[in-house]
């Protein structure tokens, strides 16, 4: 059993000693966290752990005990999409969508620390999120838009 705050809700979660955070979240229906590779390579399982983007498949659930976790399910508020999600839609940065939750969370983590990232910094921040569809151009554009939006410029 571990204690986690997931998307603002604090409670105990069933966990075996060898479970990863990804196992625990998906088992309980938080399936916005994708299992692409299970080995830290694809970034589809990205969540925010204590505000930082991590690969949930590489985190032992026991290590997350007591921590705060945000998944894609928790970034919109009152039915309104997060500005990063809005920007992904506007820029056409979503194709099959499998990488999108992880990509959006990496972007949110970046923008929380750096309100005006350069293109290089954006590419660096999503370098652990593989996308098989888009070629990354629209996603970089989406994150640039989101940054402007969060700075109140659009």
């Amino acid at each position, binding site marked *: 059993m571990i204690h986690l705050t997931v998307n603002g809700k604090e409670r105990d979660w069933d966990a075996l000693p060898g479970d990863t955070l990804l196992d625990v979240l998906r088992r309980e229906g938080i399936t916005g966290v994708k299992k692409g590779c299970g080995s830290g390579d694809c970034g589809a399982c990205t969540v925010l752990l204590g505000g930082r*983007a991590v690969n949930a498949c590489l985190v032992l659930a026991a*290590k997350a005990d007591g921590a705060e976790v945000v998944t894609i399910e928790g970034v919109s508020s009152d039915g309104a999409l997060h500005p990063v999600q809005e920007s992904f839609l506007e820029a056409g940065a979503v194709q099959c969508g499998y990488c999108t939750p992880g990509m959006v969370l990496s972007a949110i983590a970046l923008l929380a620390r750096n309100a005006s990232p350069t293109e290089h910094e954006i590419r660096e921040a999503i370098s652990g999120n593989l996308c098989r569809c888009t070629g990354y151009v629209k996603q970089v554009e989406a994150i640039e838009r989101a940054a402007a939006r969060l700075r109140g410029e659009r």
Partner: protein
Amino acid sequence: MSLRQVQRIARPTTVEEAWAIRRAAPDASRFLAGGVDLVLYAPPSVTTLIDLSRLGLDGIREEGDDLVLGAMATLSQALESPLVAGSAGGFLRDVLRRVASPPQRNLATIGGAAVRGHPWSDVVTALLVLDAQLETYDGREARLSLAAAGAGEGPSPLVRAIRIPGAWRGSRAAFEKFSRAAVDVAMLNCACSALVERGTCREARVAVGGTPALARRLLDVERSLAGTKLTAVETRAAAEEAARGIEARDDLRASAAYRRRLARVGVERCLESIAGRGEETG
């Protein structure tokens, strides 16, 4: 992947306690730092994980002129630390920026990266040229040089911190990594550092990793560089000596012959950058 075989997570609060649990079960236990490697590669015999997160080993601090990186500091913490940025011209920070991906760097610890010793490790290569020492505990506190670590019988000691001696914190250092994609592991990596006084290289460190073996220092090359002015001719000669001196082998990432070329180019670039003639790369 999950660690189905794990039955227990121990949460010691002192290094003595942690070591006692480890020593009592050499095959069945492992230290849990960032956990990244354990999740991927823990042997099936491991049923107890010893979580090191309550030992207070995650600080980054100065001790005299030395820089001491708590073993549990994540690569991201090290990368963002002003003390790291202020050491060897930001060398280690710049290396860490090129290690793995940001989400992985938020998990992996500097201690884990130093001792796990993946053959392609960029961190080990970089720490070798800073003359890094491991502060360990295995019943008693000790300090050993990273270059000498890894030998010995039984479970390897608990690493409390990585210490970078003051002299090498003030060195000029440079790093090169060759990989197919930014987040891919290196086909080869190398690092050089030098203590330069009035234009003369007093002492140098040269390490090459991913050959595909784990990084090691090239002592002959280091000796050749001592006393030189790091002229273009001298750096070229040292780079050629380095290329001859590595134990290059073929593997799925690159051939031995290609690795020798990379070593020559990489070491020369590092030394040129130390000599102030380098071009921006990476």
